[in-house]
């Protein structure tokens, strides 16, 4: 149990220390008459609207990487075409292939190349296209949850939630860190525990501990919890 308590104790320390430096500065500032009270209702509403939008954007992928890749692809193709057509425009010999020859070969297509090569090329291009297309069409939800907070918008990576729940499960089951694995997805938390050989585990205690931690965390959307206790134990843990 001491496991769960120590982070608490440690966490509360900087709280006492540091905001004070901020508070001290503000009392000097805030006492001046006529200083604007932060957060009049109008400003608060505007913040809420802006924050909702930010939170919505934060839980979705921005696809910035894919966009860069797509742009690079288009730019490379354009630069090559530009080179060849510029060479053609100033009447120089082509670099790789003359646009006219290229067009003539394209019109004659099934002939001139082996069907195997053509099919493979088509397959690769279609696959790349499919990846781009699915990336654009699928929702692209990031594995993150939102937490309630009166002042700020809070997004938490599922990995952080998982490690917090793993700590709760570990302290409840009295096993080592390596014996617990937690997988968090949008609507489900799966806690896998491997008991120490010879020491019985009470599943409902683990479930209660994890659910209690989850209730206090209150992520949205709220996932449900499932605990799996492995049938084989670990020796010497």
């Amino acid at each position: 149990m001491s496991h769960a308590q120590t982070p608490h104790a440690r966490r509360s320390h900087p709280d006492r220390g540091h905001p004070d430096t901020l508070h001290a500065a503000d009392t000097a500032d805030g006492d001046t008459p006529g200083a604007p009270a932060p957060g009049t209702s109008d400003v608060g509403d505007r913040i809420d609207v802006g924050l909702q939008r930010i939170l919505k954007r934060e839980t979705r992928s921005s696809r910035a990487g894919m966009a860069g890749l797509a742009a690079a692809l288009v730019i490379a193709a354009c630069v090559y075409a530009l080179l060849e057509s510029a060479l053609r425009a100033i009447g120089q010999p082509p670099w790789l292939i003359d646009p006219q020859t290229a067009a003539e070969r394209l019109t004659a297509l099934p002939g001139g190349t082996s069907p195997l090569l053509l099919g493979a090329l088509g397959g690769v291009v279609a696959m790349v296209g499919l990846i781009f297309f699915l990336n654009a069409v699928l929702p692209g939800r990031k594995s993150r949850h939102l937490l309630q907070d009166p002042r700020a918008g809070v997004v938490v990576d599922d990995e952080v939630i998982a490690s917090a729940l793993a700590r709760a499960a570990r302290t409840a089951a009295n096993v080592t860190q390596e014996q617990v694995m937690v997988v968090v997805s949008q609507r489900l938390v799966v806690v896998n525990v491997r008991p120490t050989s010879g020491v019985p585990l009470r599943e409902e205690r683990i479930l209660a501990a994890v659910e209690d931690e989850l209730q206090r965390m209150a992520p949205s959307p709220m996932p449900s919890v499932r605990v799996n206790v492995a049938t084989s134990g670990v020796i010497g843990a």
Partner: protein
Amino acid sequence: MNGTPHVLNRILIGILGLKLLAIGILLMLLATVPAVGRWWQGWSTGLWEHAKYLSEQTRIPGREESWLWIAAAAVLVVLIVLMVAWVSQQGKGRANLIVSEYDDARTPGDVNIGGNLAEQALKAALAERADLAGVTVATYEVNGRPGLRVRVQPRQGVSPHLLAADISRLVEALDLVVGRKTPVLIHIGAGARTRFSKAERVR
């Protein structure tokens, strides 16, 4: 939190994906179905003849080449510029000031408060916490208004809601100092630094 154009990204990536998909399927059909090959030869040869006829018509006076080549080159240059502009839109939106006001009634002149103030105050307040592996604070512009993004990487096993409450209290203290409420996003994330660090526990 930044100004990456999500919708534009989806649309452009989708268009490119569909085009590549269509080309790929056409190539595969050409390789496997003879009837498609015959149709393609007829259709594309017609198109090519038409293009050749056009380029005959648009010859530059006194020279062999058609000005269509120059037009095509110009179109390509425009396309490249557009693509570069698109890439430069990704991840933009960093701001320098968290407060910028002009109110002569109360104080003569403008009041500007740099984003560095908030960034460094929050960073310093969080620096000594043993349960954090990393803190990044940045100012962004959201809908034309400045906002703060606080990204913390807690060590394994730290309860995110307690951490969020603590940071939120720091932000409220900052509100009093600055005198304005700015939108704040707290991102509690995991990264390589937290994954390989020790869990928060008794040693």
